């Protein structure tokens, strides 16, 4: 009897372990993606928005640590923090007070910096409508089997997000951009995280399938910053991203944590605002979606079972003569660069402008005084005016 139970236990264990391997293989292919991309955008500039740059760079660090290479990350930053005149520690951007963690580092690759971070460029990156001269590192070359992580941070409002203090992107435009991505099958699944005030309004208008969205605050609430550093003098991080990063520190490339844990990050007690999420457009159950499906880049692999038997010997490539026929051409490329317009431009004719306000006022005053005195002369003296009326 005992032997029977032992044997049955043993056989079930064997069965379970073999099923486990099968399940493992099945889970490998259940997410349906083969590569990962990340688009990280910081929409603010100026020194007092230090925390937004620190937010974006911290997410960039985590995403790189979990495996996504620079060639698959599009990073858009104003990048005016590290070398700002007001930065007491130049070439650094800290994310924690007491300057514990320098997230700028020396291998950060910013794809769109300074004034290139505009709504137009952001939409061009998402929809793929870039001019043909754009290099590969500035493009989002995703296909229908790519999982994309999009992270936006900055100042926002109800239904819009402010870009670099001069323009806005509305939630309708964003939803339309995602729909165009879906029409062209530029993503398999998309995770959208936004850390701004009233962030939940930005994902209200989404209508394309396979989108999951997280926001740091609801409509009508403000997202608050975490802690200032007294030496640097500004707030270093936002609360939601700070706790998001704490959560991501525990994730390693092989971990099996799923999205339901991500939704619990930063409850109201820690964040003061109420984080929100939206999963109704997502086809899979969020409990079965791994964090590393979006934040990391776990590749599927298959063992190569077959090989081809090649028996032909290698034909010797004919050695081209070292000297002689190979003409060395001098290629001049300077005309193709935009700088050639500047080099070759003729001196511009200065256009005539009407006089400036001050000069105008001065002349008006002079003329007034002149005619007034003339009139004065005429009426007072009664003599002939200096000009004749014919």
């Amino acid at each position, binding site marked *: 009897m005992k032997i029977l139970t032992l044997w049955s236990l043993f056989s079930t264990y064997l069965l379970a372990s073999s099923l486990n391997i099968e399940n493992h293989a099945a889970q490998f292919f259940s997410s349906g993606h083969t590569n990962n991309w990340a688009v990280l955008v910081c929409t603010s500039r100026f020194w007092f928005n230090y925390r937004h740059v620190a937010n974006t760079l911290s997410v960039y660090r985590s995403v790189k640590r979990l495996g996504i290479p620079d060639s698959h990350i599009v990073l858009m930053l104003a990048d005016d923090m590290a070398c700002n005149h007001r930065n007491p520690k130049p070439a650094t951007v800290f994310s924690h007070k007491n300057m514990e963690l320098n997230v700028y580092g020396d291998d950060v690759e910013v794809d769109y910096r300074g004034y290139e971070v505009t709504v137009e460029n952001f939409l061009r990156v998402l929809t793929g409508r870039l001019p043909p001269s754009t290099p590969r590192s500035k493009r989002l070359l995703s296909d229908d089997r790519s999982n994309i992580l999009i992270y936006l941070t900055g100042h926002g409002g109800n239904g819009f997000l402010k870009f670099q203090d001069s323009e806005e992107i509305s939630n309708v435009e964003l939803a339309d951009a995602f729909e165009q991505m879906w029409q062209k099958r530029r993503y398999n699944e998309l995770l959208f995280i936004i850390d701004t005030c009233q962030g939940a309004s930005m994902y209200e208008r989404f209508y394309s399938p396979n989108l999951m969205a997280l926001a740091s605050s609801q409509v009508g609430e403000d997202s608050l910053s975490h802690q200032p550093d007294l030496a640097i003098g500004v707030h270093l991080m936002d609360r939601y991203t700070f706790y998001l990063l704490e959560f991501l520190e525990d994730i390693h490339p092989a971990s099996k944590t799923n999205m339901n844990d991500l939704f619990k990050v930063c409850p109201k007690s820690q964040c003061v605002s109420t984080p929100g999420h939206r999963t109704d457009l997502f086809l899979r159950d969020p409990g079965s979606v791994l964090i590393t499906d979006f934040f990391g880049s776990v*590749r599927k692999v298959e063992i190569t079972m077959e090989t081809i038997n090649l028996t032909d010997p290698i034909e010797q490539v004919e050695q081209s003569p070292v000297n002689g026929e190979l003409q060395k051409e001098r290629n001049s490329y300077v005309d193709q660069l935009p700088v050639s317009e500047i080099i070759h431009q003729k001196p511009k004719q200065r256009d005539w402008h009407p006089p400036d306000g001050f000069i105008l006022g001065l002349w008006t005053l002079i003329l007034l005084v002149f005619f007034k005195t003339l009139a004065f002369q005429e009426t007072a003296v009664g003599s002939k005016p200096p000009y004749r009326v014919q």
Partner: protein
Amino acid sequence: MYVHKAGLQIDLRGQLAALSIAAVVILIGVPLWWRTTETYRAWLPVSQIQELANLQLQLSADVEVVFARGTVTPEQQKKVPLTLTQDDEHVVDEDTALRYRYETRYRTATIMEEDALNQPTAAEADLSLHTLSESPCGSLVVYVIPESSSLLPEDVDVYVGQRRTALLRIGAQTRVGRTLEQLLSHLEPRVKQVLQVMSFSHTDITAALSDRVRLSPGNKESIADSMRAFKSSPGYEITFSLLNPDPKSHRLHWDIEGAVQTYIQPLLRKLAPLANFSIDSQTLYYAMLGVNPRFDSSRSAYTLNSDSLAHVINPVEARLGSNAASSNPVLNFLLYVPDAHHSPLHINDHKKQEVPSNAFHSPRWGGIMVYNVNDFYGPEAAFPVDINIDMAKVMGVFLAQLRLLLGVQSSAPPPRFLVAPCSSAGIADWELDRLMWSRSVENIATATTTITSLAQLLDQIGNIVINDNIAQQVSSAVTSLQLAVAELESGNLRFALQYSKEAILASERAFFDPSLLHLLYFPDDQKFAIYIPLFLPMCVPILLSLLKIVSDARQRRREKHAKAD
């Protein structure tokens, strides 16, 4: 000037002024404002695009069935040659329908073909049959050989050659005494099975339509198959990298140029109608794998088990360069020579068995092979040791991986089928045909979805400017699509592929044109907020004066009636 009429002052000049201003505003101002705030939209062939949205594809395949001596009786021989056409209709979804047309021609073998079939082995027969005639692209020839023939081994009924021929052994129960109709009806499903392997099968074609039709995923094998191969693209970049983590111990020499020229270029030359390929190679020093291998004392070798393979690629990928000038997908093939302290290194599969090829590949990325060199030198060798890498073995693995990643490899053949081993060209003619069928269908499907979604997008958003060049691209895409569908119907595979490639290039260029950015979104309340301060102050006096004119005229008429009464 005032006109006094029955005590009522009519300011005629004022009225004329108001009326003329109103006339100018309405007749000239409004059309001028309309024309100047219009966006330029060139004409698009919307009706043709809507026709294309409903995709009815017909794929035609020509099959020639040749009866060898001993399969048909002399009386039956007189009735053969004949031609039969068969149609298979499938409805994929409400917008897409497929029809497969098989034109089968039956005939008997010629004397020269009989001689060729008398060769001792199937491979030689295949070779000599090929020298007799060359089948055009997209067609097949099936030779039916008698049961007693010794060409095929015992357990094999069908031999698939390297060109476009197959040898089919007639079944044991088919006695020669049957009528021709019975013979044909017995052969028909078997010929169809051969067609499914060598030409196109419904699963392949529906997988190619995945852009249009999001089918629910089947079993995990079909998901894996659909995810593995790269999607159709006008060009591919192939990069071969040699990773040497230990240059102090190993000095590696690989003749990559010669190897590529001898082994890879024949395949790429054959695939030239499908896409452009560009090849480059590089050597990386001090590039480690990101995973620590475990020492297996039973085999005295280091092992990497299959679970850790997934984490090998990412640390290496960050250091691989890529051609920044093009946006084509990149296939990376890495050759890793383990360092002296971790040699030999073997890869284990799920069952902890050693993998004979010592290589693995990642869908839509590339492949990695581990090449052990510890056998080439003894323990007392002077470091660094010069090692020449055996490129034939390496390229054998890479070529197999390349075939898988480009979608050349089909699924396992049905039972009792024997497929000829891969030739030195790397691809059989029928495999190329198969790939061309699925790529043509994929290109047509993708181009139609692109064009229809572009038309829909331009229709929805009223203030995108449509330039002339976009309209021209769209028109040329529509023309190429119509031609491609027509060529596919008539069975000209090569032309169909070419037109489908042109269609997809034109449609992508039109869809991704940088000028099609809808940047300004004006909600209705913002539109009112802009126009009201401009037009309202101007319109109020005009409206009021018009109203005054009307009320004055009415009052005059009333007075006139009052006077008349």
